[in-house]
């Protein structure tokens, strides 16, 4: 269905002078109902009291005019014209007594209703379009602040996890019983014992740090091991039981038994 009418001739459209009601300009109409509505409006009366007969005549006149101008009307305009011609004849003739078809008056009323409905929705469309529209007349917040999703940890642990973790610790200790007891402080006596073992085994200069590393069970014991070892070694040097050598300040300390032969 063609919505707008096409002109088959290039010649400028002729316009009936002086009578705008007969202006043959189908370009702006959207189908026959739209045209009918426009014609009805020109009757300048309430659509409810419109004369369908007059309207049908105007429409038919319009179509004739279009034909005279050799305008090609879309099929639906012609269908409407045929129907209106039929309606017109029905309206003019006396109503047959028991007809099975709807009466001419009913048909006219139905057409009027359709026109009113179209007009009603047109008005509504205009009112709708004229409303304060978002982004044209009213505006939302230009810089919305999105909801920040903060993840909150939900810690999961069962009593079983807790007990088995504890048991694991204790089990570890069952098995580790034989290892020497961990102490927070390495006593001088322990240091001396260790150094005496060193003298016994190492004939050559031995790096004290490396040797003592074996006694540092945990990192934080390093200080106490070194401190106690140093005190013990100084005492042993004084007693002539140990030789110490350091090549430069802060350089590694070496120790050996004075009894051993210097290899040099």
């Amino acid at each position, binding site marked *: 269905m063609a919505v707008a009418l096409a002109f088959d001739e290039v010649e400028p459209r002729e316009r009936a002078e002086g009578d705008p009601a007969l202006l043959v300009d189908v370009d702006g109409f959207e189908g026959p*109902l739209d045209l009918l509505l426009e014609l009805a409006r020109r009757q300048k009366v309430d659509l409810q009291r419109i004369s369908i007969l007059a309207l049908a005549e105007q429409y038919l006149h319009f179509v004739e005019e279009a034909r005279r101008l050799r305008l090609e009307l879309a099929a639906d305009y012609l269908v409407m014209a045929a129907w209106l011609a039929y309606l017109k004849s029905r309206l003019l003739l006396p109503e047959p007594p028991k007809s099975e078809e709807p009466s001419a008056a009913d048909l006219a009323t139905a057409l009027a209703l359709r026109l009113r409905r179209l007009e009603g929705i047109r008005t509504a469309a205009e009112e709708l379009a004229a409303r*304060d529209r978002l*982004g044209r007349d009213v505006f939302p917040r230009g810089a919305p602040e999105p909801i920040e999703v903060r993840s909150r940890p939900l810690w999961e642990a069962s009593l079983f996890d807790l007990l088995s973790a504890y048991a694991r610790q204790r089990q570890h200790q069952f098995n580790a019983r034989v290892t020497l007891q961990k102490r927070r402080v390495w006593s001088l006596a322990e240091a001396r014992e260790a150094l005496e073992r060193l003298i016994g085994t190492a004939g050559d200069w031995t790096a004290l740090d490396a040797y003592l590393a074996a006694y540092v069970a945990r990192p934080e014991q390093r200080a106490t091991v070194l401190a106690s070892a140093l005190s013990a070694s100084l005492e042993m040097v004084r007693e002539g039981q140990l030789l110490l050598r350091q090549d430069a300040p802060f350089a590694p300390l070496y120790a050996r038994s004075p009894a051993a032969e210097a290899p040099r």
Partner: protein
Amino acid sequence: MKRGHLAILTRTDEAPGLPDRAEAVRVAEAILFAAPAPMSADEIAARLPQGADVAAVLADLRATYAGRGVNLVRVAGRWAFRTASDLAYVLARDAVEPRRLSRAAMETLAIIAYHQPVTRAEIEEIRGVATSKGTLDTLLETGWIRLRGRRRAPGRPVTYGTTPTFLDHFGLDAVGDLPGLDELKGAGLLEGRVPQELSVPIPSDDLALREDEAPLDDDLFAPLEIEAGEGGA
């Protein structure tokens, strides 16, 4: 008008019975200002201090902002702050001109809004012309209309309806607030030709399908093509 530290106090040792209304209003104000889209009263209530009366809080807030440069409005059953409409002239500079709908599209939209749920054939009957596929596509593209379901009738035509975005765009709380709806209804202009006994002459954008509507089912993505064949029926 209370300051932050006070507010925190109120939240922790909350007086039994009356929660602090002013604080609840502040919270609702903050939430609605920040929200990128309109929020339902329930969504707001979920964030208010316990026991706050969300309706009263919103009424307070609406009253506070009445007449201001920003107003609290209800759109699509939800709440949002919007610039006052009489200030459009100042803000128009920012406006990205919304796509102008053709007259045909605007009419089609109006028919969908006022007559929903409505089929393409019914739209055409009202307008008296065929509806081009482009018109419906354009409208679907705006996000203002949606395919609702299928009419339980021969050909099972797709039914169209409007969306909450439509209400938001046109500043409507509900389809019942459409302009001139009462006049159209009163004049009997909303009654369709179709199933008289089922037709309720009130538009409905309710998500629930009507009795005479069936779900779209799986041919969701090709409804227009399918419906196109129905025009002549």
